[in-house]
C-alpha cells in the first residue's frame, strides 16, 4: 500500500491536519474522513455536479480532485454556507422558491450559485445558465432553481 501524505486544509473556516492516501478523492475525504455528508456523490465521473464544492473561490467537482491536490487550500462545503439556524440568502431563496425537490443536487446547485455570485454579483440569465450548466437536476426542470438564483441576486444586492 502506498504511503500516506500529510495535508493541511481549511474547511468551512476550520483547519484540518490530515494523513491521506494519494488516491483519496476530495469527495471521499469530505464525506468519509470529515463526515461532511452534505456533499453528494451522483456519478463519480465529474458529469453531474452533485459533489460540487468551492476550493479557493472556484467551483470544483470534488470527485475529480485528489485530496493531495488541495493541500493548503480553503474549501467551502454546503455545511459552511449557513451559520446556525440562519440560512445564507441563497439557501433561503432555494427554500422559498420551491427549488428543492429530492434535494440530492441541491448542495451542489447552491455552491455553484455562491461561486457565481461571488464572481458576478449581477449576472445575466446566460451567465447564470453558463455557471449552472454542470449541475444536473432530475426533479425540478431547473425552472424554480432559476427563480431561486434570481431571488438570491435581489436579496444580496
Amino acid at each position, binding site marked *: 500500500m502506498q504511503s500516506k501524505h500529510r495535508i493541511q486544509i481549511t474547511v468551512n473556516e476550520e483547519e484540518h491536519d490530515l494523513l491521506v492516501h494519494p488516491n483519496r478523492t476530495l469527495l471521499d475525504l469530505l464525506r468519509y474522513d470529515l463526515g461532511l455528508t452534505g456533499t453528494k456523490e*451522483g456519478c463519480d465521473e465529474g458529469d453531474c455536479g452533485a459533489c460540487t464544492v468551492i476550493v479557493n473561490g472556484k467551483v470544483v467537482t470534488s470527485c475529480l480532485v485528489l485530496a493531495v491536490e488541495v493541500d493548503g487550500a480553503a474549501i467551502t462545503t454546503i455545511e459552511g454556507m449557513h451559520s446556525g439556524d440562519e440560512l445564507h440568502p441563497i439557501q433561503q431563496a432555494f*427554500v422559498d422558491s420551491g427549488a428543492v425537490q*429530492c*434535494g*440530492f443536487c441541491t448542495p451542489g446547485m447552491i455552491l455553484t450559485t455562491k461561486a457565481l455570485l461571488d464572481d458576478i454579483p449581477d449576472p445575466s440569465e446566460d451567465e447564470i*445558465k453558463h455557471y449552472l450548466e454542470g449541475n444536473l437536476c432530475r426533479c425540478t426542470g*431547473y425552472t424554480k432553481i432559476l427563480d431561486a438564483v434570481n431571488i438570491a441576486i435581489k436579496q444580496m444586492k
Partner: protein
Amino acid sequence: MENYSIVGKRIPHRDSVEKVKGSAVFTSDIKLNGMLYGKILRSTLPHAEIRSIDTSKAAKLKGVKAIITSQDTPLVKYSISPTWADQMVLDDQKIRYIGDEIAAVAAVTEEIAEEALDLIEVDLVELPGVYDPLEAMKEGAPLVHDAVRHNISKKLTMECGSVEEGFAEADLILEDTFKTQAQSHSSIETHCCIATCSPTDDVTLWANSQSPHPLRQRLAGALNIDAAKVHIITPYIGGGFGSKIDLDPSQAISVILAKKTGKPVKIEHSRKEQFMATRMRHPTITELKFGVKRDGTIVAKQAKVVMDNGAYNSHGPAVLAYNNVMFSTLYRVANIKYEGCLVYTNKNWGGACRGYGDPQASFAQEVMLDMIAEKLDMDPIELRLKNANIPNEVTANAVKITSCGLKECLTEVKERSQWEEKRINPKKYRGLGVAAMIYTGGGSIGSGFNYSGATLQMNADGTLHLLMGAVDIGQGSNMILTQMAAEIMAVEPQSIRLTTADTDATFPCMGTFGSRVTFCAGSAVTQAAKGLKQQLLENAAEMLEANIDDLELKQKKIFVKGSPQKSLSYAEIGAASFYRRKKPLVAHGYYNGPEGISPEFDPQNYRGYPAPSMAFAVQVAEVQVDPTTGKAEILSLTAAHDLGRAINPLLAEGQIEGGAAQGIGWALMEDVQFENGKIVNPNFHDYKMLTIKDMPKISPILIESIDPNGPFGAKGLGEPAMVPTAPAIINAIYDAVGVRIKDLPATSEKIYKGLKEKELKTS
C-alpha cells in the same frame, strides 16, 4: 368553492431547510459501526450458462469477510407479482443480460471488495443472444427463459365494439408505425442500501425505496424469511421516477451478506451499475390504425404493440396493460382493438418509469391525431375537443370517469399558448404542436391492492403527530399530506410532527407510484384527521358543556361559536384525555379503493380498469428548427393539467416543470443505446439529459376539476407531467418544417435527414 386556509397555499417542501443545509440524511450518508462494503459481480456476457464459480482465491484476500453465490440463496423466483415471478436474487443456471448478478463480496473497504470480485473465477458458456423483440418472437430464436415460448412473456388482446364495423363506416383510414426508445430514470442518487441482521435473525434494511411496505414482503419472499422479522427504514430519497419500486437484488444480497458476517453491509450502486442494472422505460413498436368521419369523429382505433421487456418481468406485464388502458380510454371511441406482446430479450429490462406505458401510447396516438387533423384540414385542438372525454362517462372499455377537465385543458392551452395567432401567422421554421393524455389520478386496485394507511394522534400537550406509510421521494408528499391534516385540525402544517415510511412505525402504504399518494394516502390522512377532530369535539363538548354542533376549531383551540370567551386549548383537551379520562386521542385512516369494481374488469388486459379517478392534461410546445443542422429548440411549453384540486400550487408547478424536462429529454435526446446487449452510453457524459441551458420556459396551468372522491377534490399529477410532452414536440416539429418523426428521439440527424428527403421530393 370552499374557503380553505392551508389547502391551496404555496408552501415550500417540508424538508427543504434540511436539504439546503446539507443535513438531510440520505441512505448513502449512513455509516454504522463495523460496517462492511458489499460489491456485486455482474455478468459481462448477455446470455450464458453458468458452469461453475470458484471463490477460493477471492476468499483468501485480506479484508474479505464473506462471498456469496446462488448456493447461499433459497433459489426462489420472485417479481412484483407472484404470477410473473421469473427472477432469482442470484441465478444458479443462467445469465440473461449484461449486468446480471452472479456473486457478491463483503469486505472492510470498497476497494478490497472490488479487488475480490476480480479474483472470483466464473466458468460461463456463452449462448446466442437475442436483442430485438421482433427477432425474439420468431420461431427458433434463442430463448431468454427456457420455458417461455417465442419469448413472449405476456400477450394481451382486447376488443370493444367492432373495429371492423367501425372502419367500414369511416371516411378516412390512416395507418402508421411508431417507435419509442429506452429512457433511463437517472435520479441523481443511485440505489443504496444497508442491511443488519441480529443474532435472532431480525433484519433491518435502510433503503431508498419508493415502496418500503411492499419491499418488506418481497424481500421476505425472495429470501424465504418471515416478513415479521424485517424492518425497512427509508431515509431521504434522492428521486426515483419508478426505478426504486422493485426489490433490487442488491437489497437481498446485502441482507444475506449481513447475515453471513454478522455485520452491517452497505451496497451502493455506481452510476454505471445504475444504468446497467436498474430499470428503464420499455421501448415499444406501435402499429396504429385509425378510422375517422369527415367531421373528426374517431369511429375506430386499433393498436398492435410490441414491448421490449428485456431479461426479466419487473412491472412489464402491468406496463403493457397500462399502455392498453391509456391508449383505449383517451377519447370517446366506440370501437377499439388492442393487441400487445411483451417480449423477452437479452438486455437490461424495463420497469416502472414515470408514465408507466402511457408515454409510449400517448406518443403514437397523439402524433396519429395530428396526422388525421392535417388530412381532414381540421385544427388539431378542435379534433381533440370533438372526441374529448367528458365527466361521469363510462368509456367503451368500461373505465369509469368521474371528474374530467380535458376540455378545459384544451381550451386553456389554446388561449395561453396564443395557438390561433401563431398558427395563422407562422414564422419560418417555427411551429406549434399539441398533445393530450389521460392517466390514473390515484393508482388502481387492479392488482387487488391500492392501500395507504395513516394515524394521527394528539399528544397530551396538544401537539399532533402524523404517522403514515407514504414516502416522499422529492415530490413533496410530506408537505401535501400534512397540509391536508393541518387544514382539518386548524394548525400550521409544519407544527405537525411527522413519521413516514418506516415499516415498524406506520400503517402500510403501497408506496409512491401510479400518481397515487395525493389521492390514496391523502384519503387515509383526511380520514384520520376527521376521526381525530371528532374525538376532540366530543371531548370539548363534554368539557365545555356545549352542543357539539356549536363548536369550531381555530388556532389550536376549540371555541363555542358566538362565545369567544368559552374555549379550550388543544393542550387542555390533550391533558384531560390522557391523564383524567385515560383515553389517548388517536385516529386511523385507511384507504384501499376504489369501491365498486366494474363487473367488466378483466385483470389481464385491464378492460374496466379500476382507478379511483382519472387525470387529464394537454400540452402545447412551440419549437424552432434550425434547417442547417436539424436541431429542434423548444421555445416554450404550455402545460395544462387537471389535478382535481391544487393542494399546493408551488409543488404542483414543480411536478409539471420537472416532468416536462423528462418529456423533452425523451423527445429529443435521451436514449439508452445497446450494441449486442451492451449499453454503450452508461454515464451522464454520453447519456444526455437536459441541463439548465436546454430548459425552455414552462407555463403550468392548473385545472381544478374537483374530483368527487379525491381528498379535498385532489387527483394525482406526478406521472402525467411528462406524458404528453414528446408528442406535443414532435407535432410542433412537423408544424415548423413538415418533417414527421415517428421514432423517438427526434435527434438533429433525423430531422435534418427528413428535411433533405423533403427537398429531394420537391426538387
